[in-house]
């Protein structure tokens, strides 16, 4: 059974929700967790909940990197910050993967500092998952978007590598045998988007082990045309933030409308169960987190606002990826390039 190092001090609701999530994992799974953080705080929180101590180890460190801290400076100054220690435990072979809901930049830097890059991989990618429509039976409710911020600009080779890494991860974790891979572009034609995208398109078309479906545009992101969407970090980050912002606006608009007009309020009440189902489908807690890909070890980055349920699911995702040998799969795919 895999051992997952969990950054107990990272996240908006850390350490309470993180510790609760690990406690839930200890009761419902056989996964071994190492909680990295302040031992006395963690134990005080464990005392308040049901847990199985046989599956929990605590690795003490008092330092942590705050959500708003500058990643580069913090990583340099706080050598014993919980996220860095968690990554070190994995590098030392004491754990198999890391889960964190903490500072994203620090998480990526922790990987870069302690994990070796997979042979042949030029840049690591930060992935994210988001809910969308499905087009065929068995298709995952969530699409994988990468890179969403580990890089700024990428060349064609790097985009091709992202596609291979994303495809291997989706195969392992989503159990989609042949995930559809697409490039995010300003048009569907092969010649759109500049040199990097054009070259990436041409190379992906020739790779046999990947189900490349071409370019997709922004308006297709919410449809089920692709399971893995590849783009450079700058664009991916803008898309991700736009999706999150839109969701907030919709919720806000509905709330305002309900306050201002009783008919709207009544209508929203009648649609409540439908909204509930929609919320379940789009609930970030249900998918736990998304990986940083390209290193020999895996880090699952959960949403900063992660609750115990999100952490539990992130731990399950990490364990599943370890069991399925996702990094090995990525390495094999990169070797074939």
């Amino acid at each position, binding site marked *: 059974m895999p051992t997952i190092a969990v950054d107990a001090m990272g996240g908006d609701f850390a350490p309470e929700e993180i510790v609760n999530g690990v406690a839930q994992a200890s009761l419902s799974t056989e996964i071994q967790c190492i909680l990295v953080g302040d031992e006395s705080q963690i134990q005080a929180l464990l005392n308040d*909940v049901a847990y199985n101590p*046989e*599956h929990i180890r605590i690795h003490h460190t008092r*330092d942590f990197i705050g959500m708003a801290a500058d990643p580069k400076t913090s990583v340099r100054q706080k050598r014993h910050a919980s996220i860095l220690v968690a990554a070190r435990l994995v590098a030392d072979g*004491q754990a198999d993967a890391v889960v964190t809901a903490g500072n994203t930049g620090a998480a990526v830097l922790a990987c870069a500092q302690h994990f070796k890059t997979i042979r042949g991989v030029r840049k690591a990618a930060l992935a994210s998952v988001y809910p969308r429509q499905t087009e065929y039976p068995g298709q995952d409710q969530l699409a994988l978007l990468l890179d969403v911020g580990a890089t700024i600009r990428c060349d064609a080779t790097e985009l091709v590598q992202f596609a291979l890494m994303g495809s291997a991860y989706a195969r392992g974790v989503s159990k989609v045998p042949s995930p559809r891979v697409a490039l995010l572009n300003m048009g569907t034609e092969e010649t759109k988007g500049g040199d990097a995208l054009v070259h990436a398109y041409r190379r992906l078309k020739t790779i046999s082990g990947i189900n490349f479906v071409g370019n997709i545009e922004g308006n297709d992101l919410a449809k089920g045309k692709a399971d893995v969407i590849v783009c450079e970090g700058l664009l991916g980050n803008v898309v991700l933030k736009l999706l999150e912002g839109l969701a907030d606006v919709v919720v806000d608009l509905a709330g305002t409308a309900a306050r201002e007009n009783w008919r709207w309020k009544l209508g929203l009440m009648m649609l409540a169960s439908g909204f509930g189902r929609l919320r379940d489908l789009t609930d970030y807690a249900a998918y736990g987190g998304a990986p940083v890909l390209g290193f020999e070890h895996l880090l699952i980055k959960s949403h900063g606002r992660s609750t115990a349920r999100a952490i539990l699911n992130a731990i399950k995702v990490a364990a599943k990826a370890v069991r399925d040998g996702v990094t090995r799969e990525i390495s094999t795919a990169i070797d074939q390039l």
Partner: protein
Amino acid sequence: MALRRTRRRAPEPLAPIIYRWDLDKTYLKSEFDSLRGLIRVPFEKPQDKVAVPGVAPLIRSLREVAVDAQRPVRIYFMSASPPQIAKAIKQKLAMDGIEYDGIVFKNQLQHLMRGKFRNLREHVGFKLTELLKSRQHMPAESREVLFGDDWESDPIIYSLYADMLAGGIATDNLDGILGPIGVDRRLVALAKELAAAVVPADVVQRIFINIERRTPPKDFRAFGPRLVPSFNYFQTAACLFEEGHLTLPAVAAVAESLIGGSGYSPARLANSLADVVRRGHLRPASAMTLRGYLQTRKLLPEHAPDGVRPSLWERLKRRLQPQVSTAPASPEAINYETLIAHWRAAR
């Protein structure tokens, strides 16, 4: 100058030790959680009954260690199950190699015949009076260690019993404590009568509660440090070692049975040991002794889990900064009225 003769005094004999065990959910993994399980229990054959992992070697070791130390020892079992299942239980204990000095069952039929249906589910009165009755026949200097679980009211029953023996509860107060629980008035009267005959002495050394229902540890804080909630019998064995009831090989026997017979790994045991230290029920020095011995027997991982050692400055800071207390509350008199209300509300 007169020669002073030094006379070697014979070592004082150790006070007899009594180990009292609850049966269901403490010794046996009884399935009371579902109606199906409840119906099946009376028809189970001895070989179908399953002991809680590690409990049988623990009890065997408790007797062996006491006998080796020439300490008088008695082991008793108590069950709220009806005497109709006694035969199967006794056979199961024999199969597990458990020698015991007495076992008592609850005569449910008697309550049915009398129409006392509430008494069928109410066990506090039954267990408390049986404990007090049994105590009457024990040597006054004998010490006791009690074992129960968190399924029903063992923490309350055992704590009440311990405090009654210690003279910490006036018999007049028993009505106020037992009445709200729904204890039969006749049993309350009997408990008062038995308690009045007790010569006050603090004889209950420790109460171990097997956390079978995964009750959060904080729910036990109000019972004080005498009560040790333990997640498995390896934790219990570690605490019993610290108090001299078990030897290192005896703890190893419990660990071996958990690894060999119940699918435990050395890492799981190491985590358990660290947990019981963090919760303040086992001293770090005792844990270190145990760890050293069990590592040589390959029952704990060879390397200490602290692979990434904190810096000297970090260790110093850790010592200087105030720690959040995780240890049990200090031994104060238990407010049973409040405690019972909270405990039962949480069930």
